[in-house]
């Protein structure tokens, strides 16, 4: 088995430079690579293009990079929870490409799967379709969307083994498996790193071939954005 383990967070993010394109997994704050984001927020890298469904909150997740103005451009589908983000976007400091969530997911998947572009009905007739080729299939207009890849993809899984095989937990899976496929260098952080042979091959979500580096995160805060509960009757 090819050993993908890196022993320090510095090793995990080595090679990261200004002006690079990153993918960052997660939906809201669920399943975000907390340790990698925190380490990146302490580096002097700027001018980053960040592909991530959301932009974190002001003091957690990608909000940490936004606060230091490390991000030049965000490619996301929903950015509603971050006041600093909205301020930078409305003032023009931050370039933002908002794209439909399903198109974002499929563009990452396509990037990792060697499919350069695809047609989708999502966004036809809207701002999203501006400048994009339109073709009719089955009597319905579709727009051409291009695949996305990145210099680095930072993903987070529940368990992983030293060969880079990953298993996610719950809805923390979201964009992580797709982005893992689309990174030139995919850095996976896991809550529990185990030796090869411990994970059931039938249960692997991301095969290790897509992962270049893996490490066990030092700690996970796993913040909840909208705590909703019901009371016992």
């Amino acid at each position, binding site marked *: 088995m090819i050993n993908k383990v890196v022993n320090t967070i510095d090793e995990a993010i080595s090679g990261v430079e200004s002006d690079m394109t990153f993918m960052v997994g997660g*939906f*809201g*704050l*669920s*399943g975000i690579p907390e340790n990698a984001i925190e380490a990146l927020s302490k580096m002097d890298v700027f001018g980053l293009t960040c592909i991530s*469904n959301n932009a974190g909150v002001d003091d957690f997740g990608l909000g940490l990079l936004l606060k230091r103005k490390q991000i030049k451009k965000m490619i*996301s*589908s*929903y*950015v*509603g*929870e971050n006041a600093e983000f*909205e301020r930078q*976007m*409305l003032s023009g400091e931050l370039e*933002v490409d*908002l*794209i*439909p*969530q*399903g*198109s*974002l*997911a*499929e563009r*990452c*998947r396509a990037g990792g799967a060697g499919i350069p572009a695809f047609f*989708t*009905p*999502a*966004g*036809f*007739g*809207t*701002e*999203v379709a501006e400048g994009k080729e339109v073709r009719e299939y089955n009597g319905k207009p579709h727009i051409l969307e291009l695949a996305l890849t990145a210099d680095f993809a930072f993903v987070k899984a*529940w368990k992983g083994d030293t060969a880079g095989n990953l298993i996610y*937990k*719950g*809805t*923390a*899976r*979201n*964009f*992580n*498996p*797709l982005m893992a496929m689309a990174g030139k260098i995919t850095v996976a952080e896991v809550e529990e790193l185990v030796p090869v042979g411990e994970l059931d091959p039938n249960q692997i*979500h991301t095969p290790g071939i897509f992962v270049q580096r893996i490490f066990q995160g030092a700690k996970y805060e*796993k*913040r*909840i*954005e*909208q*705590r*909703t*509960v*019901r*009371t*016992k009757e």
Partner: protein
Amino acid sequence: MALDKNQIAQRIAQELQHNTYVNLGIGIPTLVANYIPKGIDIEFQSENGVLGMGPFPFEGEEDPDMINAGKQTITTMPGAAIFDSATSFAMIRGQHVQLTVLGAMEVSENGDIANWKIPGKMVKGMGGAMDLVASADNIIVAMMHTNRSGESKILKQCTLPITGVNCIKKVVTNLAVLEVTKDGLKLLERAPGVSVEEIKNATEADLIIRGEIHEMRI
């Protein structure tokens, strides 16, 4: 009496078909799950990657790894499934999800919907709404009939950037149930105690009104 948000949800719940997969948007649509009629089996899909979504967890049982697309903590029902975002939108784009209920800032009489952006003011993004409205067979909009200044949100043409073209099938508001037809917006039902005249006055779009308009049953 105009309906409150819960009553709008209650009225939409009457549209649920047995043994179907349904995606509920954020806001009033989420409340629909509280009013599923007896004998109707529904599986709720949330586009962040869960099918078979259950109620909110009991206090102390919240799991940060188990949320819905509104980032709320949730539980799953027996038989639920978890998947990645691309698979989730394969369900949506591939028309396996049969009904979408979502909120709107504006709808137009030809079935356009605007719910993702107010230029220069609110720029939160479309999330999954554009994928949902572009593909779902049946789309019901849950919304208040007018905005806070009393202006109609049901228009001849949307003024805000649209989310989808000619896609919505029904609109349920605090005042009325409307259907999008080839000929325009048809008034189907009125809220209890609300007159047809009041609905007309609150609606900028033209309404098709044929015969007697019955009150909704809540």
